[in-house]
């Protein structure tokens, strides 16, 4: 297990290193003066000079990259060249909102998608199974911003049941929760379909397993058999996918946050792009990638914990 973990951590470090070299040097891949590219051709020379020195763009490229990586490892992702605030602080301020959004979305997807998949598998080829399959594929192909816009149109604009704009404040938890419903649902919809499909396929395989028949011979109720005995195994491949899921949700969160006017990593990124605030863009990219590889690792580890057979192989 320790060897496996070591290997995985080494791989993660390599992936993040390459990504940071890429992001650190990216600005020089574009032909022309980086400062002019960032600021636009109309920037005054004095302002351009100050940005140049602040971002270290006057140093050799290799040094710039090393500086960036060294800083990033120590939690310093540079400074916003408009407000001069540290990027880490800016990201830290909005990250909780995005994480809450993504985790709620993933939670909704699991809470709705898993039972749908179990029901579909248990009642395979029934009319309801077919209906769930049609809904699933529709949800899977629905781009997250389309889901967000349609939910916004229906529940916030037309019906006016739920607030449409802003994430709210932690000091008003009920209001915050109400404002979380539509955005997290919008993020979840695609994953509800995906998880339902995945769970169905996985369950169908497990329901034919000998140990499910054994559980039946114990006289256990169908509910217990499906949700405890069969799902216990069927969920293992699903967990592996969830690790990738959070990364995708973070990508979708950009749209959702912009559509619902929520503060978060996505709107920070969006605003930074609009103002070509490169240090912020780069910082967000690094944080998103780090979150992605870390959740991937966590999913992989829990995957191993869920299956005692792999656990033993990993020990030896």
């Amino acid at each position, binding site marked *: 297990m320790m060897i496996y973990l070591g290997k995985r951590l080494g791989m993660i470090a390599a992936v993040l290193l390459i990504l940071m070299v890429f992001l650190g040097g990216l600005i020089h891949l574009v032909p022309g003066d980086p400062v002019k590219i960032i600021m636009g051709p109309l920037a005054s020379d004095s302002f351009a000079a100050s940005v140049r020195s602040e971002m270290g763009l006057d140093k050799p490229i290799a040094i710039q990259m090393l500086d960036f990586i060294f800083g990033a490892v120590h939690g310093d992702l540079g400074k916003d060249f408009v407000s001069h605030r540290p990027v880490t602080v800016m990201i830290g301020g909005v990250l909780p909102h995005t994480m809450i959004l993504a985790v709620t979305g993933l939670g909704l997807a699991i809470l709705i998608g898993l039972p749908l998949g179990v029901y579909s598998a248990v009642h395979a080829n029934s009319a309801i199974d077919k209906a769930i399959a049609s809904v699933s594929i529709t949800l899977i192909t629905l781009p997250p911003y389309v889901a967000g*816009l349609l939910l916004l149109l229906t529940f916030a604009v037309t019906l006016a049941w739920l607030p449409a704009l802003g994430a709210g404040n932690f000091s008003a938890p009920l209001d915050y929760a109400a404002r979380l419903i539509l955005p997290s649902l919008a993020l979840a919809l695609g994953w509800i379909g995906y998880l339902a499909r995945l769970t169905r396929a996985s369950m169908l395989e497990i329901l034919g397993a000998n140990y499910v028949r054994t559980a039946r011979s114990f006289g256990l109720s169908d509910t217990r058999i499906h949700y405890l005995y069969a799902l216990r195994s069927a969920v293992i491949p699903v967990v592996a996918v969830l690790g990738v899921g959070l990364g995708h949700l973070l990508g979708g969160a950009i749209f959702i946050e912009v559509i619902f006017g929520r503060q978060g990593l996505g709107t920070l990124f969006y605003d930074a792009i609009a103002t070509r605030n490169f240090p912020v863009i780069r910082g967000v990219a690094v944080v998103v990638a780090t979150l992605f590889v870390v959740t991937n690792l966590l999913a992989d580890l829990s995957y191993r914990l869920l299956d005692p057979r792999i656990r033993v192989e990993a020990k030896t």
Partner: protein
Amino acid sequence: MSVFTITGGKTRSANAGTVRRLLRNSGGKFGLLVVLVLVVLFVFGPQLAPFGSAQQDIASRLQGPSFKHLLGTDHLGRDLLSRLIVGVRIELLVAIPSVLGALVLGLLLGLPAGYFGGAVDAAIVVILDALHALPTVVLALTLLALLGNSLGNVIFVMAISLAPSFARVARASVFSVRHSAYVEAERFLGASNGRILLLHILPNIIPPLLLLVAMSLPTAIAVETGLSFLGLGVRPPTPSWGVILADGFARVRTAPWAVLWTCLALAITTLGCTLLGETLRDILDPKRIGDQQ
């Protein structure tokens, strides 16, 4: 329908069978219909549209559906139906080159990784993992922010963002054929690596990659529209669906029609393309046919 004819030779009867099986499946039928409509709109869109896509009529702006404007008008009084129809051409003109670009990039990375293995493979896999760690949209937006959003840049950036999945499939496919008897025989006869890759390995890994091309098109359309929606893809006044969506979103409270129609058009397009791709995959991959029953 290049998917049907690409294999050439004695495939005519097989293709007829494929189409028949496609039509037997309701999802496939729907997918085929959607794709056919898209093809027609792609070719004849500007002729079929009732109004010019840029034709303004400020007097009748932000209207709901009427007999004159079936889907209503936008903030400049432009006919939404016409803009959506003309938009199909923009969507596909961006999506198709993006996916083909991703295919080429994916081959450039995946072929050597799968063929040479070892250190080359390890290095390429780390690069792919690094690219994969950024969600497609984040990667595309980061690159676009630097490059600026010309049409060419949008295509280039989307090709890069979509390339990792092509590289993965190419790599895995090469793995499965590189030790086959005929490749070993060629190697024994002294063929160069380039010759083996091009003449013997490439033709054998084409089918899964073509399927991926088909399956990536809806993704490309969705990503492109998303980028334009955020103002970083195709720029106004070009009637890309993302631009129409962004225009509509700015006025969603007073005139929700533009957002509604564009969302529906997108949902139907991505669903149709995906259903067609999935049905084709199920038909062409005999292993999966068993699964379906």
